[in-house]
């Protein structure tokens, strides 16, 4: 009976894998299991939210006695402000450099005839799989030699280099998706490469550039080991290192301040992700990528 109904309904969009909807007990079980799993994900986060507004927080989650003093404390701390600034400089520079270089590189890789293009793309793919912890020692040695240590901009340059391989792949896929006819038409009408890039390719790939830039920014914002190794001055410590130092100095910080700082530090990337997610929905179709 149920089967017959199902087959006779032509407008069903998708057939569920596990037919829980037919049995309400099973549907209940699905939702209950999911809610329990959801609790597992929410519980650790709640500590940060509650401790941030609690006047006397502890390691455990408890209902806060509400206060905004922790926020006032953190906003009055020079080291907290400095590390926020350092993070903005590092992540901002990384993002701008990566976005510009990846668009410039991805366009010819997508559209033009280049000798050894396939080998180049495979090399780029290989690079994106290499761990940063392998590169950090030789890069540190190079930075000592070049005198580039302890600068937010040279730190950002290395972060840009390490995020470039993936960004080039991402950008190339976005440009591949834009039909080439418009560019051909513009070229026949006499537009030069720069003009085609600026007036046709850039506007059409803007969502792709935004996704690449936001993805790079989120990664650079949270980057830890690279600034940790390449900078040492107190004023050059980015947010993650500030939080790490707070964590290590037992008793020298208040739980509430730590919670507020990490909350404020995490907020930008969560907001950016929400902003990006509507463009991002198609990015996870990996099926068939490896054959």
């Amino acid at each position, binding site marked *: 009976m149920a089967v017959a109904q199902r*087959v006779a309904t032509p407008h069903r969009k998708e*057939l*569920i*894998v*596990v*037919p*829980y*909807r037919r049995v309400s007990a099973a549907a209940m079980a*699905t939702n209950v*299991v*999911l809610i329990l*799993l*959801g609790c597992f*994900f*929410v519980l*650790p*986060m709640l500590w940060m939210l509650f*401790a941030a507004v609690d006047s006397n927080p502890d*390691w*455990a989650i408890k209902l806060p006695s509400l206060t905004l003093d922790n926020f006032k404390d953190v906003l009055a701390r020079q080291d907290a402000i400095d590390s926020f600034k350092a993070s903005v400089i590092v992540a901002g520079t990384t993002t701008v450099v990566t976005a*510009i*270089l*990846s668009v410039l*590189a991805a366009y*010819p*890789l997508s559209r*033009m005839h*280049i*000798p050894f293009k396939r080998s180049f793309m495979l090399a780029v793919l290989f690079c994106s799989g290499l*761990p940063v*912890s*392998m*590169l950090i*020692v*030789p890069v*540190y*040695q190079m930075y000592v030699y070049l005198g580039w240590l302890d600068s937010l901009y040279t730190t950002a340059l290395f972060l*840009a*280099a*390490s995020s470039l*391989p993936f960004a080039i792949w991402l950008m190339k896929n976005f440009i591949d998706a834009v039909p080439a006819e418009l560019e051909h038409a513009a070229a*026949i009408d006499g537009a030069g*490469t720069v003009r085609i890039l600026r007036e046709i390719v850039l506007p059409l790939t803007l969502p792709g550039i935004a996704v690449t830039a936001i993805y790079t920014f*989120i990664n650079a*914002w*949270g980057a*830890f080991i690279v600034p940790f*190794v390449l900078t040492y001055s107190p004023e050059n410590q980015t947010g*993650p290192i500030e*939080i*790490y130092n707070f*964590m290590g100095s037992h008793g020298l910080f208040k739980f509430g301040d730590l919670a507020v700082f990490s909350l404020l530090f995490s907020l930008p990337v969560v907001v950016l*992700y929400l902003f990006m*997610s509507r463009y991002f929905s198609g990015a*996870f*179709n*990996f*099926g068939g990528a*490896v*054959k």
Partner: protein
Amino acid sequence: MAVAQGLGPRQDRTRFQWSSLVMLAPAVAVLGLLFVFPVVYAGYLGFTNLALVGSRSRDYTFTGLDNVTRMMGDYVFTNGAWLTILFVVGSAIVGQSVLGMLLALLLRNAHFSVRAVVGSVVIVAWVLPEITVALIWYAFSQAGGTLSILLHRPDTDFLVVVPMLIVSIANLWRNVAFSMLVFSAGLRNLPTEVLEAAEVEGASAFRRFRTVVLPLLKPTIVTNLLLVTILNLSEFTLIYAMTQGGPGNETMTLPLYVYQQAFVFHQLGYGTAISLVLVVIGAVFSLLFVRASRTQI
């Protein structure tokens, strides 16, 4: 002919243009200087006795396989290699993939409000900066933290008692959204006819999953395993911020040991050699997955 020349280069097919190299040049320069060169340099440094300070910081020499011999007798290294494999297999390959698949399947069948809330929470855990995840899990597992109270053992610091388990769970907690999103996309793209046919034939839910969904999802699963392995193999921030490799060396995975040898013990050459081992482990895992995906379709 003369007319065609007057119009400039042909536009009906792509041909080599110097402008393409001009556009590629900046990216190639940055990648060459800060990616390719360090990789090649690492290949050399790994076989030297370079140190951060002292006489070996200037006149270091090529020492052949000395670093390899040293690793073989280095308990922290061999232990670290096992911990790394345990971490990648337990937390990433098994934990993250299985829980990710479970979430993807359950979310498809959940009430839409449950789906929206639980899905978002899992994704927020993934988007949070790693250091924030380290902090909240540090707080969660402290003596007097939420976990100890839930388990009625308020004096137990779980990062001391079962450190590897806690960092593995924290890592799983953070990264599971990635596998969940990959599998959700894969499930969405499955051909509905095949599933429908299996259901009409009366196959049970479990049987349909095992004999229809799993084989069809194989490319997605292999890609997921490959990416998850590569990403987790070099995991540093979360473990380091929570334990610094301790207590003892109980959570000293290879990425942490690279950092310790290179920047705490100042053994840049030996540290680089360990990072090369990490790359080899990654290559072995990748080859295994690619081979597995080829043979059994």
